[in-house]
């Protein structure tokens, strides 16, 4: 049974019961009042008649006549005839013996009996000295009954008409009141079926409006989660696809060239070429494996941050990259205006080495790479700046994605797995630091790591010790 069915039936039943009960009570009261007033009227009329008869009898006696039953009957008859036309019957009894109407008029009796229920019958003795005489007054009130019956019929008719009309009005009212419920339920259904951007259009200020607001808030939260999840799944899928590509490509080459070396009828030059490819692809696979290992270790180990001397850090980095820089004829310019930063020395070195390697690959021989450390707005900044080929906005945006290479052909030449910047991002996250990338095609790239200064962290560590 639907909610609106329940409301409709409940309200209808309640209303009709309340209406009927009150109407019945009103009718009953009105009947009682009518009866009372009829009875009072009958009583006063009877008294009036009794008094008149008494006066008549008095005057008869004053004239010296004796009151014979026949005389009495004739007196009573004169009244009886007069009142009969008004629907009033009179009886006169003397000590219980009927005097008027004459005890043979069966026709009148029969009539009286027939309507006995619809008459008011009152009896009273005449005032003294005629207390032996009893006047019985009966008044026909069938009109009152007829009126009551008419009212009853009318009441039943009203019930027959009012019931359906009420049901119809209630139906319309309840449908319009429960419309928001239907809307909500419809929206919930479509959202459950996967239409996450769907919202309820409901602007009433009642409980339904409130529910709609909460519902929409919930739908928005669900939608956001779903988007996040699908984005994540998409990124994971891309990562797996890329990883598959990164693994299959060197493996194909290694397998193919090894096969070629053992089974093909080739000269020394080709043998050397094949051997060199096997070597370079092995290096590439090794780099990939180590970078993946680094990423996984970073993800699963908490960092212990300490004060790192910038001079030492830069020294380590430039020593590591010295050979590559010299090979390509690229000078490294170092400038530091802060003594130390807070971080993990090995990871920061790895971060800078990765950036410098990228910069070396992007730069022309002779174009310098700058390695800077300075303070900005109370934070430490480590910056690697080159004047190399730069990246477009789209490339910059995807630069931190695992396996993304702005220039695949060239970076693969160096055994680059496309994981350098992913690793950098992971290192930054482990430091709770920010990475900024600015790049202009043809002009170069700047990457900054924004870290805590050691003095900030000193106060932090004191408070944390407390």
């Amino acid at each position: 049974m639907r909610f609106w069915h329940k409301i409709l039936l409940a309200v209808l039943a309640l209303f009709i019961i309340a209406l009927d009960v009150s109407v019945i009570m009103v009718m009953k009261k009105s009947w009682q009042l009518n009866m009372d007033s009829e009875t009072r009227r009958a009583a006063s009329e009877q008294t009036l008649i009794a008094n008149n008869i008494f006066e008549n009898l008095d005057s008869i006696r004053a004239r010296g006549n004796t009151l014979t039953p026949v005389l009495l009957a004739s007196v009573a008859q004169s009244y009886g005839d007069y009142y009969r036309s008004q629907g009033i019957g009179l009886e006169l009894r003397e000590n219980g013996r009927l005097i008027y109407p004459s005890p043979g008029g069966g026709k009148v009796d029969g009539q009286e009996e027939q309507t006995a229920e619809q008459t008011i019958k009152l009896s009273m003795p005449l005032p003294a000295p005629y207390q032996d005489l009893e006047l019985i007054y009966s008044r026909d009130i069938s009109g009152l009954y007829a009126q009551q019956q008419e009212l009853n019929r009318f009441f039943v008719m009203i019930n027959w008409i009012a019931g359906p009309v009420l049901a119809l009005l209630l139906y319309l009212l309840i449908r319009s009141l429960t419309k928001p419920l239907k809307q909500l339920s419809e929206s919930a259904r479509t959202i459950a079926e996967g239409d996450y951007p769907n919202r309820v259009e409901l602007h009433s200020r009642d409980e339904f409006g409130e529910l709609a607001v909460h519902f929409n808030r919930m739908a928005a939260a669900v939608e956001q989660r779903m988007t996040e999840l699908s984005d994540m799944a998409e990124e994971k899928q891309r990562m797996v696809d890329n990883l598959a590509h990164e693994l299959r490509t060197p493996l194909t080459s290694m397998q193919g060239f090894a096969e070629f070396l053992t089974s093909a009828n080739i000269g020394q030059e080709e043998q050397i070429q094949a051997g060199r490819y096997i070597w370079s692809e092995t290096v590439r696979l090794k780099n990939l494996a180590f970078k993946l290992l680094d990423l996984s270790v970073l993800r699963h180990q908490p960092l212990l941050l300490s004060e790192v001397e910038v001079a030492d850090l830069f020294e380590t980095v430039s020593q590591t990259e010295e050979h590559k820089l010299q090979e390509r004829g690229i000078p490294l310019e170092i400038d530091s205006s802060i003594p130390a930063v807070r971080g993990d020395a090995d990871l920061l070195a790895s971060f800078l080495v990765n950036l410098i390697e990228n910069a070396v690959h992007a730069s022309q021989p002779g174009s310098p790479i700058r390695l800077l450390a300075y303070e900005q707005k109370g934070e430490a900044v480590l910056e690697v700046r080159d004047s190399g080929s730069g990246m477009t906005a789209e490339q910059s945006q995807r630069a931190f994605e695992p396996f993304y290479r702005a220039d695949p052909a060239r970076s693969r030449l160096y055994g680059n797995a496309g994981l350098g910047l992913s690793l950098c991002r992971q290192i930054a996250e482990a430091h709770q630091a920010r990475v900024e990338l600015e790049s202009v095609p043809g002009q170069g790239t700047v990457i900054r790591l924004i870290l805590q200064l050691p003095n900030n962290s000193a106060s932090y560590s004191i408070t944390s010790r407390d």
Partner: protein
Amino acid sequence: MAHILVVEDEQPISDLITMNLKLVGHTYAKAYNGLEAADMLEQERADLILLDVMLPGLDGFAVMQRIAHLQIPVILITAKHALADRIKGFELGAEDYIIKPFEMLELLARINVVLRGNEQAVPAFVCDGVEVRFAERQVRVDQQAVDLTAREFELLEVLIRNRNIALSREKLLELAWGYDFAGDTRTVDVHIRQLRKKLGWEERIKTVFKLGYRLEVQV
């Protein structure tokens, strides 16, 4: 034998494929991305395209759409295993599909199947006065017809199509006799001896130590 366009952005794989193609007597052209491939096909005709799916710029599927009007058979090469990709490739009209990492012999075999299906006239193979006509299944030595059994001809064709590459006895059985042949690898030795004798190719068909046999022809 055939002119093949190799579209592959990975330098090592591109070199690997072309070195093998050269070995068995095909000529080739190389393209390193989709746009380059499409441009090259405007200029010169190719008998077959080996097309990598993951290419910078224009991917393999886009290249197929662009060159569909040229009606050149395509074998797709990809690292992706996904069924959807394979179906898409076939829908676009690819003849075959090979997944990295692959064996060179497998790629060559697939190339041969596609070429055989598309070539109208297979040119005869000529070497040292031996002429092998594939269409007629005839072999002539110094203009004289030589009788070869069907199996010997199959074996000869496999050796020619994979020339300069050592083929193990098992591989030869698989390629010339078929997978379901339950024979001994010594059967191969017997047939090779027959071929050497009939064609006078004692020096051409080399026994490669620990590997098998190789038909050596100057590239």
